[in-house]
């Protein structure tokens, strides 16, 4: 059986500056892999390359055995890869419910005529879509915000809206970009549980970018460490934590990784 995701020798430059160098990663179904490294190491760039936000000039990406290297973003999303964003990217002027509904765009197949005529198929699909959106709001504890305009939501809630929006597209691979950013201990503890539940209930494979080591340690079976676009270490988090190259990247010569 093919791997869920297989990235082969990905390289990406910004104006001559190497953002990602020769990056390879294979993720098996059901895995939860961490992507860590100092700021500017190229982690988010890798997410942008996977989801087609940036054009890939070198290297290839396979999703469930299909070569998606040249696919446009909308096809990649429809194929089953969803993501959240480091700096929250909601439709700020739309309600929370509509934000979540929009995430399901790729899965819906009624045509213009059905919609204009308000046909039964259209109504059934709309209702199923709405029900699913409400279920996700419920799960993420957002029900009372359903009609609130997204920009009025507290930061943490906005992050959860992004996750709900990612899940409604029915992904098999979920890319989480710093979901714990700005969270305190109790909040990130809750987040860890939420991600675990999500993975179990939706049968997800997850790649996680995260700075909070505690979250990474608790969740990831293995991690890749990037620095200036280069992969400097990979393996189970406990081992990587003591890798001299990693310590140096994070803290200079003789530090210890804070837990």
């Amino acid at each position, binding site marked *: 059986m093919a791997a869920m995701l297989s990235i082969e020798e990905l390289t990406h430059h910004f104006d001559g500056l190497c953002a990602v160098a020769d990056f390879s990663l294979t993720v098996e179904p059901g895995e939860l892999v961490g992507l860590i490294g100092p700021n500017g190491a190229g982690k988010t760039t890798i997410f942008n390359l996977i989801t087609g936000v940036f054009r890939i000039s070198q290297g290839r990406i396979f999703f469930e055995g299909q070569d998606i290297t040249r696919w446009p973003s*909308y096809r990649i*999303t429809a194929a089953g890869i969803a993501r959240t964003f480091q700096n929250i990217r909601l*439709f700020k*002027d739309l309600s929370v419910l509509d934000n979540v509904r929009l*995430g399901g*765009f790729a*899965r*819906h197949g*009624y045509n213009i005529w059905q919609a204009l005529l308000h046909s039964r198929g259209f109504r059934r699909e709309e209702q199923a879509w709405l029900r699913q959106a409400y279920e996700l709001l419920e799960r993420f504890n957002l029900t009372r915000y359903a009609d609130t305009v997204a920009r009025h939501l507290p930061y943490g809630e906005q992050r959860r809206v992004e996750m709900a929006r990612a899940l409604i597209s029915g992904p098999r691979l979920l890319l989480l970009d710093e979901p714990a950013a700005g969270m305190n201990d109790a909040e990130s503890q809750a987040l860890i549980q939420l991600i675990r539940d999500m993975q179990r209930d939706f049968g997800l494979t997850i790649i996680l970018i995260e700075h909070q080591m505690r979250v990474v340690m608790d969740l990831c079976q293995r991690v890749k460490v990037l620095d200036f676009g280069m992969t400097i270490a990979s393996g189970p988090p406990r081992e990587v934590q003591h890798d001299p190259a990693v310590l140096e990247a994070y803290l200079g010569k003789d530090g210890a990784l804070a837990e």
Partner: protein
Amino acid sequence: MLQVLGQNVLNALQLGSVYALIALGYAMVYGILTMINFAHGDIFMVGAYLSLAAAVFLLGLPFKAPLPFVFVGALLFSMFLTALLGVTVERLAYRPLRQAPRVSAVITALGVGLFLENFTLAMLGPQPRHFPGLIPMQPWNIFGLTLTPLQVLIILLAALLMVLLDLLIRRTLLGMAMRAISYNRPIVPLMGVPVDRVISLTFAVGSAIAAAGGLLYGLAYPVLDPYMGIRIGWWAFIAAVVGGIGNIRGAMLGGYILGFVEIFTPVLLPASTYRDFVAFSLLLLLLVFKPTGLLGRPMFERV
């Protein structure tokens, strides 16, 4: 007195319907690309000529085609081909400039407009063409008002098209995608929305509606010339701005307002030559006091 007023209201509604149909195209493209498609008035002109071509062809058939059939045939033919024209213009002229400064696209739009005018001129010559009458003109008398079947048809068909478009925007996936693009374009593809296709469809719908406007205009004011799109295009553009550029319902409202301005200026002021003056003054005043237009802001209504 009341009869004169009523009669003018009818005339204003008729003309306003046409302006509204064209203004929609400006609003839709602005809503989704924040670009003013200055070629839109000329796309309307091509739509009028295509309607004329289809009507003349259908009337010239060896058997005598019933007039309603000719009307519907001309309408569908010109809506379809004009939609194709709109999509082609976007594909060839605007899409390559999507990342360029907005000014480049606007200048290109002006160029496309000139091209369409002069292409039509080169093909058909400068002499105006007469639009054959397809809809009975004998008036009905109701409460002292004269009302022609054509007037009724124009007002109702325009209203029907606008209701359909409003439903399309508010209810369908396409409309949802259009609104999403107007709110936050970069992340829309990541929701699984094929942005280029949505933009193409926006141009198709806007152009098809302008073509319907072209046919109705040709029936009501049955003289076509290659430059007719300029003045009408400007008026429709003002209508879109008055209503709140980018706002669909605003464009409809603005269209009717401009229809009233055009019809009532000669009634209230000494000469019809004041009408452009009045229309543009209205625009300036409005922009001073309400820069976003009457229904400004939210590009499209909420989902």
